[in-house]
């Protein structure tokens, strides 16, 4: 228990340091000491208008991905579960993309559509895989979802009504936190926070699910309620994130794995640490793409996929022994 608290404190410290670095560092690093002496320095506008939204979104989206990854892995008893791998993020992107064809628009349309897409994704995932709890069926359901959503987005891309729409779709496909505004934070933030709150409520049920579905049910766990909390929480946390920043993969897959050796495998004990860990990973990834000297900034979603792909391979190799 104490060890877990030390890890949580350490992660919280890491997130604070990375958040501070994310505010200060970039293509132009801000001279914070000078700025504090001159409250009317125009650089403050850069900090508040450009850097702050980026930092806050990285924090929120990372926490949402980490926590939903940990909750999905706990619910499915499957260490390969992740909103990206299982197609939930792609479904959210498809939901957002489809709004480009709607004859009307209002400010919250895209976040709502993305969340609806994510909800449909989780719902299909849980429905397709049923209560069998088989790792194979679950991952195949994810493959099916990813294929369908990917095909939908590709179709949207090839039928895009305007060049502007093409850019928008590419934005959703390859997530990025560049040039986000405080408005994006106020759109997505509340939904992500509510999603985090719902996911945390599943802790005790996830622990009991270690004993399988009938084991958990015999302990008085309401599995339908757990499933509903998980679906709604993931849809809000992942969907709202995808709506403003596009698909950012693998944070949800990687984070619980890195933390299990530190805090233990108990699913409820992994939830908060995974939220903090996810925030740290996305903050660090975003800092890395900003500080990499290249002509154009590498998109965060692409960078995360480049790091996550090999990790997925490593995970598969280490799981192969157990599955074989």
């Amino acid at each position: 228990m104490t060890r877990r608290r030390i890890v949580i404190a350490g992660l919280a410290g890491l997130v604070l340091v990375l958040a501070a670095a994310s505010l200060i560092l970039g293509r132009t690093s801000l001279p914070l000491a000078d700025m504090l002496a001159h409250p009317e320095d125009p650089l403050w506008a850069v900090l508040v208008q450009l850097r702050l939204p980026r930092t806050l979104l990285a924090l929120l989206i990372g926490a949402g991905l980490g926590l939903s990854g940990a909750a999905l892995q706990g619910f499915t008893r499957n260490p390969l579960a992740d909103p990206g791998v299982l197609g939930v993020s792609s479904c959210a992107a498809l939901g957002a993309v489809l709004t480009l064809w709607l004859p009307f628009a209002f400010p919250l349309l895209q976040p709502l559509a993305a969340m609806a897409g994510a909800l449909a994704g989780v719902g299909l995932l849980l429905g397709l895989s049923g209560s069998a709890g088989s790792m194979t069926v679950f991952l195949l359901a994810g493959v099916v979802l990813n294929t369908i959503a990917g095909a939908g987005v590709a179709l949207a891309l090839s039928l895009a009504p305007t060049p502007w729409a093409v850019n928008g779709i590419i934005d959703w496909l390859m997530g990025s936190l560049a040039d986000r505004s405080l408005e994006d934070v106020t759109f997505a933030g509340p939904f992500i926070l509510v999603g985090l709150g719902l996911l945390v409520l599943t802790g005790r049920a996830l622990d009991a699910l270690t004993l399988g579905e009938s084991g958990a049910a015999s302990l008085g766990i309401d599995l339908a309620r757990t499933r509903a909390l998980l679906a709604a929480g993931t849809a809000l946390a992942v969907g709202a994130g995808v709506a403003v920043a596009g698909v950012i993969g693998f944070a949800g897959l990687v984070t619980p794995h890195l933390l299990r050796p530190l805090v233990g495998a108990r699913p409820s004990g992994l939830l908060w640490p995974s939220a903090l860990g996810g925030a740290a990973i996305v903050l660090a990834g975003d800092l890395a793409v900003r500080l990499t000297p290249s002509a154009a900034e590498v998109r965060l979603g692409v960078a995360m996929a480049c790091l996550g792909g090999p990790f997925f391979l490593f995970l598969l190799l280490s799981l192969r022994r157990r599955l074989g």
Partner: protein
Amino acid sequence: MSGFLEARGLTLKRGRREVLAGLDLSLNRGEVTVLLGPNGAGKSSLLAGLCGLLRPASGKVLLDGEDLSALSPAARARRIGFLPQTPEIAWPLEVRILVGLGRTPHIGARGLSGEDAQIIDAALAEAGAADLADRDASTLSGGERARVMIARVLAGEPDWLLADEPLAGLDPGCQIDAAQTLVRRARAGCGVVLTLHDLTLAARIADRVLVLAEGKLLADGPPEVALVPDVLARAFGVRTALRRGPEGVTVDILGRA
């Protein structure tokens, strides 16, 4: 100490298939009741129905006269503990944490108290698993795992303990240990209901034997009444001979009927 778990006209279905048809049954606390029957006879379904995990298609299950479906899941789980067949252990948890999951229906939002911790230790000791408390549950052998899973269900301090083939796959020594743990609980006032495939073991530990076949009750009574060759021939299609010795009843299986 006294208490009843009853089935009234209980019909259970798996999907569309009816696995149990209009069963009437009354079980007593303080007894070891063993459910016997061929594969697919409806034993597991009956256990799942009696602990409220499988909703009756018709009829009902009564716990001390109260309709089981009227209880909240947690209230039901506090009184009826269930050990599924081939219990799953999904994550490499410490054994003590795993056994602590048995307290789930009792604990509020605050988590495990000191009293819970004492109950968990007592359950580990009772099941002969105290020496395993700090082990990683994913590294346990079959026999160790069975002891830990029994400790898990004991930790819930249920009035009724329902176990689906808790002795399957265990070596003879482990079978005797696990069976004795369950019998001791029954003597302490718990109602113990198990499914088994070993007829001799059933004869030795059961106060009462129920023989199920094709969703119907073929026999119900003490082992020497229920485990007679005629019943076993109808249930399993085998010829048997019952021997009484100083250690109790032995059922010899002679061949196909």
